[in-house]
């Protein structure tokens, strides 16, 4: 644990009694007030231009973020991009940003040097989750939040036994203020609030994940179980970091140069890994299970509580898994060589015929000049290793033909791209 009071360069101080009293009275005043009022007080009176919001973009984050959007859409919202998130979480960030109109969502990445030094293989979470959280959450957040007089969290009293007494306002040991607008919200309040404002659910919520953090450290919570029991299941660990406690989460660390997954216009860390000899279909997580393996161990995979993906290689018959596709949080279409075009047919069947809506990624020999074809066949994510291709994507300089002659199922967006429909419209 990092002791801020003694860390070099951090001012030592004695507790400010007046502040403590002020916080106590604030808590008294706002005891019965609703969350938005608490937030407004913090943003407009207590910590003007001096407050940050920290959100995990987990199962319940939409409520706090909605409140933020009511108060001020430009407030800085920090998201810990630990590199270990479920792809669904990353999708969800985008969904909420869009739907709530938040203009200032900022991803905080772990320090690449720390990752290289402490977690080069990305498996620190397995052996030492505290340290993993430290480098992936505590450090990045600390570095950022130390510039603010306080920050807002989405913690709730009901979440774990220890949180039963969570107040609206807290003073930290270095005299900064944590604001918890949802402190008094019950499970039912959350549900009601979400319904009232039509907030989208985290894509994993309905799959049994009630408290969502980093992928490797999160599992499904049983009915009636404490929602956070799914975090760090089996490990004697309840919270992450010392000062910062929020529903953050993550998995394998990726150094910056390993951000190989191109999705939604940017390279991001890939939470998934490839299937390896000796993997157990019943318990792997974040792994693309080859289709033939899936067929062989179908029951085990369907009972596996973790997020898993499916790997479709040339020659695999996607017909055989059409009913199970929704089980997968990601489907990877494998192009062992770019000249093998079978993946295009597989992708179209998966996306168009079987209606799979999740991440459909191209892996393998993914090159510059094939990406537009892949997109049209329904692929929406690309694992890119070829450096020039990477560069072209990063710079948005893919040389492509964006005019399409032939209709291709559902990926065909602009109306004018189908010659016959284009004409039919004109003549209508």
């Amino acid at each position: 644990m990092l002791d801020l009071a003694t860390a070099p360069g951090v001012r030592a101080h004695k507790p400010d009694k007046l502040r403590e009293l002020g916080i106590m009275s604030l808590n008294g005043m706002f005891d019965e007030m609703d969350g938005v009022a608490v937030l407004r007080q913090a943003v407009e009176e207590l910590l003007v231009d001096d407050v940050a919001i920290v959100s995990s973009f987990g199962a319940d984050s939409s409520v706090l973020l909605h409140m933020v959007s009511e108060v001020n859409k430009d407030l800085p919202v920090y998201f810990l991009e630990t590199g270990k998130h479920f792809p669904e979480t990353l999708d969800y960030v985008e969904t909420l940003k869009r739907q709530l109109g938040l203009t200032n969502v900022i991803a905080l990445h772990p320090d690449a040097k720390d990752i290289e030094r402490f977690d080069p293989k990305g498996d620190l979470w397995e052996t030492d989750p505290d340290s993993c959280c430290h480098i992936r959450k505590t450090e990045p957040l600390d570095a950022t939040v130390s510039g603010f007089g306080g920050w807002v969290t989405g913690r709730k009293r009901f979440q774990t036994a220890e949180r039963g007494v969570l107040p609206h306002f807290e003073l930290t040991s270095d005299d900064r203020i944590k604001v918890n607008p949802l402190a008094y919200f019950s499970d039912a309040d959350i549900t009601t609030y979400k319904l009232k404002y039509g907030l989208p659910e985290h894509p994993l919520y309905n799959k049994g994940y009630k408290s969502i953090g980093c992928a490797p450290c999160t599992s499904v919570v049983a009915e009636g179980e404490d929602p956070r029991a799914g975090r760090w299941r089996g490990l004697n660990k309840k919270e992450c970091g010392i000062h910062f406690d929020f529903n953050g989460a993550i998995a394998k660390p990726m150094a910056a140069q390993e951000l190989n997954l191109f999705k939604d216009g940017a390279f991001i860390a890939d939470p998934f890994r490839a299937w390896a000899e000796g993997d157990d279909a019943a318990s792997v997580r974040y792994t693309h299970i080859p289709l033939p393996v899936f067929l062989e161990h179908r029951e085990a995979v369907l009972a596996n509580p973790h997020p898993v993906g499916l790997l479709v290689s040339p020659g695999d018959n996607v017909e055989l898994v059409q009913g199970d596709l929704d089980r997968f949080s990601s489907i990877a279409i494998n192009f062992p060589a770019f000249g093998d075009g079978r993946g295009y047919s597989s992708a179209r069947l998966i996306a168009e015929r079987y209606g799979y809506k999740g991440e459909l990624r191209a892996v393998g020999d993914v090159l510059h000049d094939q990406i537009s074809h892949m997109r049209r066949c329904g692929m929406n994510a690309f694992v890119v290793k070829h450096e020039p291709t990477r560069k072209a994507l990063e710079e948005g300089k893919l040389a492509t033909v964006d005019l399409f002659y032939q209709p291709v199922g559902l990926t065909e967006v602009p109306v004018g791209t189908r010659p016959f429909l284009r004409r039919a419209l004109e003549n209508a």
Partner: protein
Amino acid sequence: MYRYDEFDAAFVKERTAQFSDQVARRLTGELNEDQFRPLRLMNGLYLQLHAYMLRIAVPYGTMSSKQLRMLARIARDYDRGYGHFTTRQNIQFNWPKLRDIPKILADLASVEMHAIQTSGNCIRNITTDQFAGATADEIIDPRPVAEILRQWSSLHPEFSYLPRKFKIAMTGSTNDRAAIRFHDIGLQAATNALGEIGWEVWVGGGLGRTPMIGKQISPFVPHEHLLAYLESILRVYNRYGRRDNKYKARIKILVHETGIDTIREQVEEEFAHVKGGVLTLPQQELDRITKYFAQPDYELVNETTVDVAKEKILNPPYGRWLERNLNAHRQPGYVSVTISLKPTGGAPGDATDKQMEVVADLAERYSFDELRVSHEQNLVLPHVRVTDLPAVYAKLVEHELAEGNAGQITDIICCPGLDFCALANARSIPLAQELSRKFASPERQAEIGDLKIKISGCINACGHHHVGHIGILGVEKKGTELYQITVGGDATENAAIGNILGHGFVVEDVPAAIERLVDLYISKRESADESFIAAYRRLGDAPFKEALYGNA
């Protein structure tokens, strides 16, 4: 003729820009040859023995005079003053520089032409009857549907990395001049019981090292479902076609190994899903495209005839030309004229920049600005008024384009062979030239009648040797070029693959061997009306074998 609208123009422009970018990346070395190869092939750019070769699509073989003039200009400015018309109804330039390619493509784009998908493992330029829309023996002009297929297949995202190249040919006539039985898919216009016109679909034909005659997969597919049906075939092929061996990767092998009945079932199953979806072709769209191919404003003239017999006496070369190089037209008073690119001693299919310009002028003046490329490597003026024939002929004579040998023994199909092609075993052009000299005498040719010789420099069969009445194939044995002779091939609706009758010949012996086959035929034919191929069918291999190899 089809005219680009804004969309087509923008499409070709983007594609040209894309390929220019790829060429630039190759020139800077960002792309290595391995990475560049599939990209250039997708744009018709081959690396040949001596230089790059650029293949330009002539969609379904139809061109305007403006387009041909541009080809002439390219031949002059970027090549060595000539171009080579191919059995795929395309034109190839043999000497362009890589750095000039973007400029050439931009020039082409300015006249609505391009090199997209003239190579690579994708759906290639769709070929058809060179007399489409003009000929008297046609059920329907296949070009509107060909144009729709061109659009459907252009940069198709699912079918750009097929196991192998994919060639579609179609004919609107029951007299097949497009060799549809020897294409991956052949489409034959057909009429169903209700009298509606649609397409009979053949699949799995091909030449190359394993020649196969296509098999009927569907007797009738209506226009509106044709795209869905073809997409179903392509999907089955893309998924199940062999990729382990490039010599077994064509759809003909899939059909052969799987069996046409199983393939048909797979296609039907796929079709059941695809049919009625986004690929359904609205009649409105078919009508719209058909308008581009409307018949020109013919002058209404009475049936005009030329007295060929009389002309043959007055001016024998002209008479022969009239007899051989005209095809009956649907419109009274008009004919289609074949311009032979097979002069005595010439390289089949080659035309100089000047000759292209002359033909362009003739097309503009006498054929409603339209011309065609035939798979037999000739050019065609599709709509010429019978009364204009003397003027057209006179102009052709001036430029050595007036050979009256269409369909005769010197109208040889010939691939580039060892003179240009990196894959060749043997020369083919010099042999074609030698044969055309040997049989140059018009009287001799007239005596022989219809006889198609086709020459390929290697087993890839670009010169269609399998379907020549007499086919010649260059092979290599212990370092010497040998030529295998086949007999009895036929590319038409009576499709047949020629038989190899024995060992190959060294080049000096080939002309004499061909002569022996011809002499045998003449001596055995029932009458002058029995063609070489008819006589062969009646007589079988034995006498021809004996003619080639003696009694041994």
